[in-house]
Structures are given as structure tokens and as C-alpha cells.
């Protein structure tokens, strides 16, 4: 029992990061029907920025907020350079565009930094634990959970209470109608990228505290996790994406602790396979978003 609770807390910590990434992906999918396979590049750029910021002597307290800004700026730049040109293009084109960005950013880092991973220090408290009854809780997990919940709450308020949030939700619901109602599409799409950048930035801080390294492919794993979580949630749904993130985190932790060690190396593959099966048997995702095609 204690073990299970422990694992659930681990899973929620992991899932919180995925939820932030998935929410960013779902927001963009909402406004432009694009699955952003380049979302991980925000993490890659953040990783190199942290490496550099460490090398000039800053510490985590200063680096964290800078990272969020870096991710935000990167998101806006990517939108400006690539995605704005394929708005409304067929799904195939948009998918390949996002993969193109993904590969291009990766290539830029290989060319201008190095193909090798660079290490930077993790915060010293990263593996510190404290006991509550029989539970061994990691400060890191609790921090992630608390910050994630606060971020989600702030996002929720932003989306529900502000004009920006309302136009974003309207655009996500029905982009064409929203435009006809006078919502400025450029601005909505740009703000969606800003929001997704901020969310990815917060996720990046946590991710990098744990991994402590920067490399051209640093964004691949978080990107895949975020996309998968968003897919579990049904892509169009923002709350679904958050739920999908937590579900994915829990499933991973439970799988890792229960799989025999001989195939533990396959965790990612198994998770991927599960998601593929989910698609085979429930193509609309865990939470179905009704999308009726008018004929």
C-alpha cells in the first residue's frame, strides 16, 4: 500500500511535467489543427541556454525564470519562421512542417554546438527526500506537483476569465466562426504559441533539473511524452491533455516498477505500444471530443 502511494506520487510528479507539455500542444492544436512535433525543441533550446547560463556562473534560482522566457521567445520565433506559412494547409503538410522544424533545430545544434551531450549541475536538493510516516517523499516531486497545479490553475483562470482566454477558447472551438466574430486570428495564434511556450518553459525547468544535460536530441523524449499525453486526452480537449499527462506519468511509473528487469529497457516502447493500441481501439482518445464533419 505504502509502495503504491509512493509510486502514485512519483507518477504525479512525472505526469505534471507531461501535463504542462501536453497542454501546450493541445492549445496549438486547438487554434491551428497542427500537432506540434517541434514542441520538444523548446526544451532543447532551454537545455542549451541553461548550460550556457551555468557556464557564466548563474544558479538555478536565476536560471529558471530566464528559461521560461527563452522557451516563450523560441515558440514565437518558430511560429513566425515556419508555422505561420502553413496555416490552413492540409494535415499532411502541417505534420511534415513540424517534423521539419524538429529536424532543422536539431541539425543547427549539431552544427553550431556539438553532437555530444553537455552536462550542467543539477540543484543539490534534487534527490533529497523526507519521511512522512512510511513514505519517502522527494522534494522534487512535491515541487513539481505544487508548481504544476498552480500553473494549471493560473492557466485555467487565464482561459476562463480574460478576454484573451475567451478568444483562444472560441478559436479552439471553431476557428472560422471565431474569425467571423471579429477575433483576430494572427493575434490568437501568436498568443497560443506564447502560452504553449510558457508552459513548455516551466516543464523545461523541471525536466532539466532532473536530466542535467543538453544535447541536440534533448527535446525528443519530452516532445514524444507531451504528444502522447495530448493524444491520450483526445488532442482537441485542454482538460483532456492535462489528464492525459497525469495518466501517462502514472502508467510509466507503474510499468517501470512492475516490469521484470530484463525488459525494463523497453519501457518507452511499451508505453508507445499502449498508446498505439489505444488508438486502434479508441481512435478518438481517452476523452472523446466530438468532431462532426458537416456534409
Amino acid at each position, binding site marked *: 500500500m505504502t509502495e503504491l502511494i509512493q509510486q502514485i506520487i512519483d507518477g504525479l510528479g512525472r505526469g505534471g511535467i507531461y501535463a504542462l507539455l501536453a497542454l501546450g500542444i493541445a492549445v496549438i492544436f486547438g487554434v491551428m489543427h497542427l500537432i506540434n512535433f517541434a514542441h520538444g525543441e523548446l526544451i532543447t533550446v532551454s537545455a542549451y541556454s541553461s548550460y550556457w547560463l551555468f557556464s557564466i556562473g548563474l544558479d538555478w534560482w536565476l536560471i529558471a525564470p530566464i528559461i521560461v522566457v527563452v522557451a516563450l521567445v523560441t515558440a514565437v520565433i518558430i511560429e513566425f519562421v*515556419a508555422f505561420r506559412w502553413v496555416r490552413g494547409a492540409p*494535415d499532411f503538410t502541417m505534420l511534415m*512542417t513540424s517534423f521539419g522544424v524538429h529536424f532543422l533545430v536539431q*541539425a543547427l545544434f549539431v552544427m553550431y554546438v556539438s553532437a555530444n551531450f553537455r552536462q550542467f549541475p543539477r540543484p543539490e536538493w534534487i534527490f533529497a527526500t523526507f519521511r512522512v510516516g512510511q513514505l519517502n517523499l522527494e522534494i522534487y516531486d512535491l515541487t513539481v506537483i505544487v508548481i504544476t497545479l498552480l500553473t494549471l490553475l493560473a492557466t485555467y483562470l487565464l482561459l476562463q476569465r480574460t478576454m484573451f482566454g475567451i478568444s483562444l477558447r472560441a478559436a479552439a472551438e471553431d476557428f472560422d466562426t471565431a474569425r467571423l466574430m471579429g477575433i483576430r486570428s494572427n493575434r490568437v495564434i501568436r498568443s497560443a504559441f506564447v502560452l504553449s511556450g510558457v508552459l513548455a518553459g516551466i516543464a523545461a525547468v523541471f525536466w532539466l533539473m532532473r536530466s542535467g544535460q543538453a544535447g541536440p536530441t534533448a527535446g525528443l523524449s519530452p516532445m514524444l511524452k507531451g504528444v502522447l499525453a495530448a493524444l491520450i486526452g483526445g*488532442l482537441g480537449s485542454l482538460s483532456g491533455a492535462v489528464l492525459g499527462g497525469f495518466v501517462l506519468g502514472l502508467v510509466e511509473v507503474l510499468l517501470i516498477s512492475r516490469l521484470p528487469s530484463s525488459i525494463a*529497457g523497453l519501457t518507452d516502447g511499451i508505453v508507445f505500444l499502449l498508446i498505439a493500441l489505444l488508438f486502434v481501439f479508441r481512435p478518438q482518445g481517452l476523452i472523446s471530443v466530438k468532431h462532426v*464533419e458537416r456534409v
Partner: protein
Amino acid sequence: MDSDPIRHLITPGLGSLFLFSVIGGVFLLLSGDDSFSDLATQMMINTVVVLGLQIYIGNTGILSFGHIGFGAISGYAFAIFAVSPSRKLIQIPNAPLGLAEIDLTPFQSGIAAIAITLVIAIIVGLALSRSGARSGSVAAVVITLALLFVVHEVATNWIDLTRGGKTGLSFSPFGGNTLQGSYPIILLLFAAIAVARLFKETRAGRLAQAAREDDLVARAMGINPAVQQMIALLLSVAVVAAGSAMRVYEIGSISPRLFFFDYTLLTLTMLIVGGRYSVTGAVAGVLVITAGKELTRNLAELDVDGFNWFFRDGLTDIFLGAAMLGFMIMRPAGLLGDWEFDHWLLRRFKGAKSPVPVSKPTIMTSAQLKADSVSVRFGGFIALDDAALTAKGGEVVGLIGPNGAGKTTLLNVITGLVQSDNGTVLIGSNSLTGLTPIKIARAGLARTFQNIRLFPALSVGENVEVIRLVAHRHRQGKEMPSTDSLLVKAGLWDQKEWRASELDYGNGRRLELARAAAAGPDFLLLDEPTSGMSDSESIDMIAQVRTMAELIGAGVVVIDHDLNFITGICDRVYVLDQGRVIAEGSPAEISNNPLVLAAYLGEKA
């Protein structure tokens, strides 16, 4: 496909031969120079793999990241069979099933590898069709990515079988086998070109392209995309598997890295840059990207003052990423679009045919279409409430009513696109209730759509012909006019070679009508065929609907707002209001019915 199918394949066949000789020439030229001979072999192998991708991605429009995963399966199967037992006992002594002792020739191993890969492709294909994969669908991306990842992880972790990720499984400690200029690879290259080119012209290929252009319309016209997509998948995987086995043989070893993201990126970029809809394009893509890669690799070694920020390692990857991104943004159809060498050849030397005499009308259907007590609710909204409609062969039945009255919903229920909560639909004595749109279409209903839906990237002729292929198989009792005579009747003869997306609005409507007629239906269901047309165009449309229905011997159900059109064309009219049929009768009776005047013509009366 009006002529016999063999003749139809002659020019594409010649085209393949020509393409093969061009490519072969390039390779020959390259391999003459010692420093390029390896490159030439690599290019030939890459061409095979890219053509494999083209067969699936080009024809179905489904983006697959898994094909290189299939390549990995084939590559490993090949290596495990083909590496000599003595080498295997050193590298993978604990291989299961006594695989370490097996000794097959490279040829036998290749066949076995392709067979094993195909078995897995069948499973993946079933999963894809269960997930409703279609052009640009996310489900397909996820499933195929999962395949790529799972294969990679298994290959990395199942050390007993694959020797894991570090060193990989190799044929000899001294590097690769030389395939340069050998027959197997040349034969394979030719086979891949011919298979890819001819598949485009086969029935399966054409139906897959129609579904690529518009999945919903394809279904509503009786095409079952899952079948065509499966055929395309198996063919393409067989080609990729053969190419991949060859690749492993040439390199002389296999490790998980060999068939993962890098190779996926390379082959996809080649396909997309060249033009995924075209076999010539796929081949061109290999040439262009290989040339670009070699060029950038040499540039990267340059040492030019002031430009060292640009001429440095990694330039090749930048080139690939930028090529993919650039083409997606500026020219998503690739260099060649759907241009094929033999199309061009055909047009050059054949010249335009003169229009054919229009065939005689087919015998009018004796079947009756009958929808009874149909009710549909969307949540709390009652779209249809006990609606009914009958139509006979030779009759034109109109369906009018204010916006939101449920006209299109009734048509959707009849054609199976919307499930009714209650009610029956019969054609003759066959019940259509609850059948899929595909089966309903094959039972003899063909429709057009309120917002025109053509197969935009196919030519006008192909739009009609592909549906005739469906009719040819599923409407065998019916004697059908040829594609050409349908086009002449629709007044689209001169536009036969145009892309459907190039048609103007009125011609688009006419093409939709011709396409529906090509399905050989007992009933044509037309959803607002004159919306957005001028008065004179509407009058022409009346004549066209009439003659088309007579030509194919079908009854007509037509929805329209345009009263002139409805009274001009209909024998009988149903009036729908808020989901109910409030009146039925001849146009004259309807226009004097007080209920109708109140509900529908209220303001005008």
C-alpha cells in the same frame, strides 16, 4: 479503363522502362569513377526504399514513419539468416530457436526476410484500418511511429538475437559485401520502379488515390479505403523490405541506428522533395537530395575566410531539414507534383481524341426508394421527426424546406452518413437501414454534396473513371455509359485532362453530377446542385440532371432552395419543416398549399 486493362498499362510500363534507363545511366556513369561507385550503389538502394514509401504514402496520403521500422525488421531478419553460422556463433551464440545454426544463401534470406516483414505488415495494416487511418491522420502517425520505436528498442535490448546496439551484427570483420553493378540490385531497382509506376494505374491504386483526396466522398461512393490501403501497404512494405535487406548486405552489418530517425528523415525528404504523388518525382528526389548531400558534405570541408560559420560539419543535416521544411512551406507537392514521364509522352504523341458518340440510355430502374418514419435527434435538437419519402425510377422528386428543416439530414440518413434513431430505408426490397455508406452506395445510391466535394488533385476524367471502376465491380447488373460519354453529357469533354481543383464552380457541380452518375446508381441524390448558380446556369442544370438520369436509368431525389429549379425539374415535391414532412404533391399543388405558404414562403406570399 474503357479499353482493356492490359493496354492501359502499356505506356506506364514504357515510362518505367525509360525511367529505369535514365537512372541506370546515371548510376553507370557514377560507378565508372571509383570514388563514386559506393555512392551509386547507395543511391540505387535508396531509390528502391523511397519508391516503397511512395507506393504507400503517395497513393494513400497516409504519413508513415514506420516504413523504416519495417526496413529494420527485414534487415535484421536478413542478417540473422544470411550471416554464416561460424560468424553467428561468435556474435549471437544464444540466439533463440537455433537461429545461430541456420545457414541460408543471401537470396533465400532475402525472401524469408520479406515474408516475415509482410506478416508484421499485415498486423500493422489491420491496426491502421481499425484506427480509421486516412490521409493526414494522426492515428496513423502514432501507430507507425510506435512501430519504429518498438522495433528500435527491441533491436537495442534483445542482445541474444540482435547483438544489441553497440557493435551490431556483421557479416565479416572486414566490412561490406560489394553489390556494385550486380544483377540482383539492378533487377530490384527495375522491379521497384515498375511496381510503383504500375500500381498507380491499377484499380487498387486509383481507389486509394480517390480516398486520399476525400475519404468521406470515397466511402459515400462505395469505395472501401481499408482494402486499397492494405494492398498499398503490403506492396510498399515488400519493396522497402527488399531494399533494406539489400542495404544491410551492402553495408555488411546492421545495428539499430541504421534504420531509425536518420534514415527515416533522409528517405522521407527524398520522397517529399521529389514529389510524393509521382514515381518519377520519387526517383528525382533521390537524385536531387543525394546530390545536395554530397555537395554540402564537400562544402562543409571548405575553408573560406569569413564563411567558416557556414562551411562546417553538420551542413548536410541542415540541408536535409531545410529542404523538408522549405518544400512544405513553399511547394508542398514537391518538385514534380504528380507529373509522370509517360503521361507527358502519351500527351505528346497521341493528341486529343474527338468526343465519342454518347451511348444509348440504359433501361430505367424498376426499384423504388423508400424512407419511412425516420427520426433523428442531435442531443436535444430534433432534426427529423417521422419523416418519409419515396421515389421511383424515372421520377424526379424534390425536397424543399427552410434552412434547418432537415433536408440534408434526411439525405444523410438515406446514404448512411448519419444514423437515424428510428425508421427504415429500403431500395426495392433491400433494407439499407443501418448499413455503412459504402454498402449503401454499392446497393445503388449515389449522391452529391452541398459544398462541392471532388477529388481535387485527380483529373476531371479520373474523377469519373475511378467511380466507374467501383460501379464496374459492384453494379454489375447495370449497363453503364462510358466515362467519355458521361463527360460529353456533362459538357466537360474539353476539360477532361484538367485537375478537378481547376474547375470553376458551375463545372465543379457538373463534374459532381457526372461522377455520381458514373456510380451506376438506381437513384441519384443531389444536395443543392444549383446553389450559387445564376438563373441561366440553373436552367442548364435542369436539362443536365434530366438527361443524366435518363442516360443511366436512375430516379432522382433533389434538394434545393431555388423554387424555379424545383418547379422546373420535379415531378413531385416534399416539403420539410422542422423535421416533419408537411406537404407532398406536384409542384403546382405545393405552391398553393396554405401550410407550405405559411411555413416556407411565409414572407413572400
